[in-house]
């Protein structure tokens, strides 16, 4: 299909909006939505569903001859158009759309279609798929305030609708609105005062510039971006364990604060790893597409999840940059937009070849990841490394100068007998985590049999029961020919049917079984269930021995766990360990010859190269071998030299440990990285991972413009394509989201869908003007924010005129200023800031402030490291809300109640509800009560001495304005009433003031402080407080 871009460009300019009555029918605005909503299901882009060979989403299809010989649409002749006949058909069997489709056309739809055909059935593409063109600026409306070009577009439209803008809001309202919008925090009294006294023309602009320089700006702008990026602190699926990707969050904040241009912001996040010699920061940026939910659920099939992750990345990328609902095309050609299933999988291919694993392993850092040291850590590492080198050098020097002569001259070597090495007796070994059907039970004699020490461990059970431990740190390392042993006592009265020992070296699949074959691995004879014989004699202690090799424990295996398992009955166990070689004495070790003999006869744990030398007869060794063996002995065995080395070695070890600890403390973050061998993507039938169709290569959908010529065909090229100045969507979608930030609703309401099914823009020319201005500025984000807030449209009063409300309840025409409820995070941050509790640290690991007890347990998987909520204390309680630890399967409730998204999927537009649960949060959440109390202290210390001045202090701090006389009177009366109540029951005051972990100012009288706390809390609960007005 050849696209007629220039014709459409003209049309876009002519296009009007939903509010305007107009003579001529506009295809893109009036007709395409009717066709899309009612006809595309069967006559749209999806080839598989197409009926009657009629395709109405393409001009060619709409006007071509049908197999019946009819024409769906005949230009200028509605009566000759089959489409008109069928939609007005009386016969229900013939009428379109069919009754069972659940769709029907209104009279108005039919009239519009008729008019459109009469007027020549002009055909154009959907507006959003044609690159924006710079519109001519409308003439200014005389007598109305205009701050910049935005107002020309808005006001021209208002005039057309017979509306007029509101006057500029008062300065107090403006500074609160602007400060909340640009920083997510309210202005302080001092800031308000400074603005009020600055009567110059530049006062407002200076305020804007100051706020754009605030580091709070980056946090606030970044927060919305993190909704889109589905950023969170856990993996999201199944165990929902913790994930470390907060350095990416900090990268977002920093990028906004440094005003990174949006094109670079895009490229680094989508493909920072593919840039030439990427910096650490550019790699961290790629965390954007590692924020998706992942699983490690046992039993999952890898291939299925590789597909799901890539699909999520395509959907997210398409939504955020293009407002394209690409996900629909994962299963079939898109029903409404021209995205074919093949094109979907071509996009999918860009994200299908990461080095990530399908199973995240429930790990903090499922690879690939990078370490992100702080400046301090980098310096510390350099220091430790240099000191460590020096310490190692000292060791080397000592060794170099060491002299050694073997004191042993005889030929009679000592005899080395193998002996029991007890691993545990009477108590569990170091580090062991005890578990079992019921806890470990230790019993003592004389009531119970005990073999050694003071106790034995016992169990009585039905069926398979056991007690065991894992995680022991001092377990034996298995040597060649080692044997494991323990002692068992089977109850005469209640013997078990089976007893089983299990050994864990990372796997439990090493079992020895006595008696009936009824324990783990039953029915199979293998290392995981090796039968040792019948049950031992009842009623006495019997020693059990198991050859390590018999149960698959290889030399070098290190045990960390041991299980005592039985099938029914009562069993006692005591002492366990290995039968292995004894150690050489220190005296014996002084002789290389004895040591060597010991290695030969007892079995050795020396490295392979040394073992080989020892195997060579002494007289047959060459010089190199002799030297190597001697060197090994001196460095590792000889006690005299070891004594000399002790100090420097200790120092070296400490430094090594210091380095290791530092390495561990250095945070890391998930990043993108492509495989060397790219996987081939296929079209997946119905989106199912195991129904592979035709293979495809990475490609961008050509109908949205081709990639820049020098762009590589990988994620980098994809990113470059998105930010190429001719891309019809990226800039429009982005400026629309910014618009939404300030006005609550985008120029296109459906900021996630710019497709045919999306809402039409309220001001199409303005949208194009903004999109092109943004690109021309070099994608300068701060400059763009300034453009919006400098407009008179933004600065209008938000008072709601009832006539305007009746005409335009959603304020799409902007005949008044923006006014809507603050976001969850802003509501909380606001009271923390006002109360002085806010800790301003930027970035770092997420924190766990107050949350009602017992929220994670009822949902968490036992083995998950986020199944128990452990609240932080101190400063962590008072960080900005964007740093609150986000567990996806149980998000922080006070945030979720105020419509914060769950962060499981990409979200570019938040809901704004108004519910009783929100009232409960504001009324009763400890965070708000504590903040009220802390602020009340300031009210008493800084708010003057009179009740009136203190109330004014509250209003000015919270709302930036003075209270009215009536408010003073109401609140003043209430204060006195509360004070009287607390005077009557001082214990109530004490209780109220004890809420929250931060200390209180004891110098202030309790009853009065409690009464002020109530007043502040009241003001925190005002509708005005939670609203940007």
């Amino acid at each position: 299909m050849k696209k007629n871009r220039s014709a459409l460009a003209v049309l876009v300019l002519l296009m009007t909006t939903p509010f305007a009555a107009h003579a001529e029918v506009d295809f893109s605005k009036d007709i395409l939505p009717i066709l899309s909503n009612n006809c595309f299901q069967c006559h749209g882009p999806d080839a598989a569903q197409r009926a009657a060979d009629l395709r109405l989403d393409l001009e060619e299809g709409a006007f071509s001859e049908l197999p019946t010989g009819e024409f769906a649409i005949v230009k200028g002749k509605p009566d000759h158009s089959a489409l008109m006949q069928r939609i007005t058909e009386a016969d229900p069997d013939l009428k379109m759309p069919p009754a069972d489709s659940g769709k029907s056309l209104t009279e108005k739809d039919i009239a519009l279609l008729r008019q459109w055909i009469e007027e020549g059935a002009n055909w154009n593409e959907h507006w959003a798929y044609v690159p924006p063109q710079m519109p001519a600026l409308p003439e200014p409306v005389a007598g109305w305030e205009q701050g910049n070009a935005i107002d020309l577009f808005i006001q021209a439209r208002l005039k057309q609708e017979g509306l007029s803008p509101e006057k500029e809001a008062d300065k107090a309202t403006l500074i609160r609105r602007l400060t909340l919008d640009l920083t997510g925090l309210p202005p302080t009294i001092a800031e308000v005062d400074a603005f009020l006294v600055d009567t110059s023309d530049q006062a407002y602009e200076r305020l804007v510039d100051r706020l754009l320089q605030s580091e709070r700006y980056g946090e606030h702008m970044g927060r919305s971006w993190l909704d889109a990026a589905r950023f969170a602190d856990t993996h999201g699926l199944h165990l929902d364990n913790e994930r470390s990707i907060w350095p990416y969050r900090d990268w977002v904040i920093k990028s906004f604060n440094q005003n990174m241009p949006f094109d670079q912001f895009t490229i680094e996040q989508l493909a920072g790893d593919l840039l030439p010699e990427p910096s650490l920061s550019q790699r961290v940026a790629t965390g954007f597409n590692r924020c998706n939910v992942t699983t490690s659920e046992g039993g999952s099939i890898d291939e299925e999840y590789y597909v799901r992750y890539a699909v999520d990345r395509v959907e997210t990328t398409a939504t955020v940059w293009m407002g394209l609902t690409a996900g629909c095309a994962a299963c079939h050609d898109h029903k409404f937009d021209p995205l074919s299933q093949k094109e979907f999988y071509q996009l999918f291919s860009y994200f299908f070849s990461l080095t990530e694993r399908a199973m995240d392993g429930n790990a903090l850092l499922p690879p690939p990841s990078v370490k992100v040291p702080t400046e301090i850590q980098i310096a510390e590492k350099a220091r430790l490394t240099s000191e460590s080198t020096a310490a190692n050098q000292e060791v080397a020097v000592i060794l170099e100068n060491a002299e050694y002569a073997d004191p042993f001259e005889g030929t009679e070597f000592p005899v080395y007998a193998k002996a029991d090495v007890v691993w545990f007796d009477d108590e569990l070994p170091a580090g062991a985590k005890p578990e079992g059907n019921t806890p470990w039970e230790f019993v003592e004699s004389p009531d119970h049999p005990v073999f050694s020490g003071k106790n034995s461990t016992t169990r009585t059970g039905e069926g398979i029961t056991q007690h065991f431990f894992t995680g022991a740190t001092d377990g034996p390392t298995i040597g060649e020919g080692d044997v494991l042993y323990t002692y068992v006592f089977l109850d005469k009265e209640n013997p078990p049917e089976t007893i089983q020992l299990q050994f864990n070296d990372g796997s439990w699949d090493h079992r020895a079984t006595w008696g009936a074959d009824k324990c783990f691995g039953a029915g199979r004879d293998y290392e995981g269930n090796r039968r040792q014989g019948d049950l031992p004699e009842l009623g006495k202690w019997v020693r059990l021995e198991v050859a390590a090799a018999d149960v698959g424990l290889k030399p070098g295996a290190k045990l960390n766990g041991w299980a005592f398992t039985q099938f029914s009955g009562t069993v006692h166990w005591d002492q366990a360990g290995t039968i292995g070689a004894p150690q050489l004495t220190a005296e014996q070790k002084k002789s290389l010859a004895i040591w060597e003999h010991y290695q030969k006869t007892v079995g050795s744990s020396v490295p392979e190269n040394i073992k080989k030398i020892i195997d060579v007869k002494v007289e047959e060794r060459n010089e190199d071998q002799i030297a190597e063996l001697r060197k090994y002995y001196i460095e590792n065995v000889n006690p005299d030299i070891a004594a000399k080395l002790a100090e420097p070695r200790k120092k070296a070890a400490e430094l090594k440990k210091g380095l290791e600890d530092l390495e561990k403390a250095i945070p890391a973050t998930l990043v993108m990285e492509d495989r060397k061998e790219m996987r081939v993507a296929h079209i997946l039938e119905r989106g199912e991972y195991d129904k592979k169709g035709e293979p495809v290569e990475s490609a961008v959908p050509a109908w949205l413009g081709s990639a820049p010529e020098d762009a590589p065909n990988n994620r980098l090229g994809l990113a470059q394509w998105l930010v190429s100045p001719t891309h019809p969507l990226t800039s429009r979608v982005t400026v629309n989201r910014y618009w939404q930030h300030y006005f609550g609703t985008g120029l296109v309401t459906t900021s996630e869908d710019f497709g045919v099914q999306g809402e039409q823009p309220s001001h199409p020319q303005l949208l194009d003007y903004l999109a092109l201005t943004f690109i021309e500025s070099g994608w300068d984000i701060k400059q763009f924010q300034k453009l919006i807030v400098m407009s008179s449209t933004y600065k209008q009063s938000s008072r709601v005129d009832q006539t305007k409300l009746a005409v335009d309840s959603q304020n799409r025409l902007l005949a008044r200023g923006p006014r809507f409820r603050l976001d969850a995070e802003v509501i909380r941050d606001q009271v923390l800031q006002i109360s002085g509790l806010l800790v301003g640290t930027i970035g770092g690991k997420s924190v766990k402030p107050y949350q009602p007890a017992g929220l994670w347990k009822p949902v968490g998987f036992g083995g998950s490291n986020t199944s128990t909520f452990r609240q932080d204390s101190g400063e962590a309680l008072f960080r900005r809300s964007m740093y609150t630890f986000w567990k996806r399967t149980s998000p922080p409730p006070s945030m979720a109640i105020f419509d914060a998204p769950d962060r499981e999927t990409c979200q570019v537009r938040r809901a704004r509800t108004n519910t009783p649960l929100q009232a409960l949060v504001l009324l009763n959440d400890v965070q708000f009560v504590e903040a009220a109390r802390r602020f009340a202290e300031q009210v008493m210390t800084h708010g003057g001495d009179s009740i009136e001045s203190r109330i004014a202090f509250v209003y000015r701090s919270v709302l930036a304005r003075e209270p009215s006389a009536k408010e003073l009177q109401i609140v003043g009366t209430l204060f006195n009433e509360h004070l009287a109540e607390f005077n009557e029951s001082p214990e109530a005051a004490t209780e109220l003031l004890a809420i929250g972990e931060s200390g209180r100012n004891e110098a202030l009288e309790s009853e009065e402080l409690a009464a002020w706390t109530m007043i502040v809390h009241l003001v925190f609960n005002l509708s005005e407080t939670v609203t940007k007005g």
Partner: protein
Amino acid sequence: MNPLLREAELIETRRHFFGRAATGIGTAALASLANPELFADQPQTQLGAMGATHFAPKAKRVIYLFMSGAPSQLDMWDYKPKMLDWYDKDLPESVRNGQRITTMTSGQKRFPIAPSRFKFNQHGDHGAWVSEILPHTASVIDDLAVIKTVNTEAINHDPAITYIQTGSQLPGRPSTGAWLSYGLGSMNENLPSFVVLHSTVNGGFGGQALYARLWGSGFLSTRHQGVSLRSNGDPVLYLSNPKGISGKMRRKMLDNLAVLNQQRFDEIGDPEIQSRIAQYEMAYRMQTSVPELTDISDESRETLDLYGSDVTKPGTFAFNCLLARRLAERDVRFTQVFIRQWDQHGNLPNDIRRQCGIIDQPCAALIKDLKRRGMLEDTLVIWGGEFGRTIYCQGGLTMTNYGRDHHPRCYTKWMAGGGIKGGIVYGETDDFSYNVQENPAHIHDLNATILHTLGVDHERLTYRHQGRDFRLTDVHGNVLTDLLA
């Protein structure tokens, strides 16, 4: 009708209602806001996006008893006596037929048959087979429609439970309760329309994870998400006044708050302020209605006995079943009770006996209790998990002990009450309870049927999101008409 517009209109309607309530009659209205008694005279319900049901509903409300972890149909419902002859023999390849299985057992060299160790007996007029570990449930079998052929595609817990709850294996869609809240609205202004209850097992939690998305609202307004009614701490989050603030003080604060907000409204004219005033009143009413709800001291001894001895311990499954009945009495639309620890890969006989010991009596009690109060006819009760378990053994096998892996191809759930035919067994599985033999009931069919009993056409309860009309049953689902009374 475009559902998005419809929802917006409703919000407007509600605003107008609150707007009238407070501005039309000036100060008198303020008095009504300040006085909950007066306010309580106002209409108590909110219409949903559908306005009216698509056809006459049989059920007004739903109680969904969710067995998380997937209980074994083979040991509870799907009686396969022939399997005794198959003990420790391999599952024939012709039965498995190359179907995918989880990677927990796909590496197993053998798939030995593990017959159920439990006895089954016939119960009810239709002689339905029920395992000996469900004696109480067996006593109400004539009220149950036992569906033996429920099936799903998901083979792991997270995707499977997300699938049955939201119609999609991936996060992001609204849950069943949220859909109903959105479509049908609320019948009780003092309580949420969708309530979630979590049950303890032996005093603790544990088992397969649950996720907020299972009662989430997805792309619907967050107003529709399920509200957890908790057994410790505040039953509804943030319900209690802070320490030191008496009910009297709170009332006074709210009165003044309403006055101040009203003043602001008079100046600014934003209807959202009116709405917020009303929400605070609703919050205040919840502070009374929720404790009343969870306080079971007004239940008779006989009723408590019906549910068993655990019923007096908050958080137990028995307590939650009683609470579910109390919620149903208060016309809460959708109550979902979760109990976990059904994921029995090993040691199944012992563990399932324990689980049945916990749920059997309360399940039966709930049916009996609803029935004698005349509420069973318009309350739909659903029981079951996210998938079933395999006939072949996972791990060691003896006649009395075995484990079972996940099985998605057929498993058993039951439904009772509101619009459902009692005393029937629907569908048949093969001798191995491996494949459906007749009358499959895909989980989309089940969800379509649930909506149907509530007067909702599952194809017409839609919400436009990202340009597409979404529904609970995606593009699938057929009402299982044989189940309908």
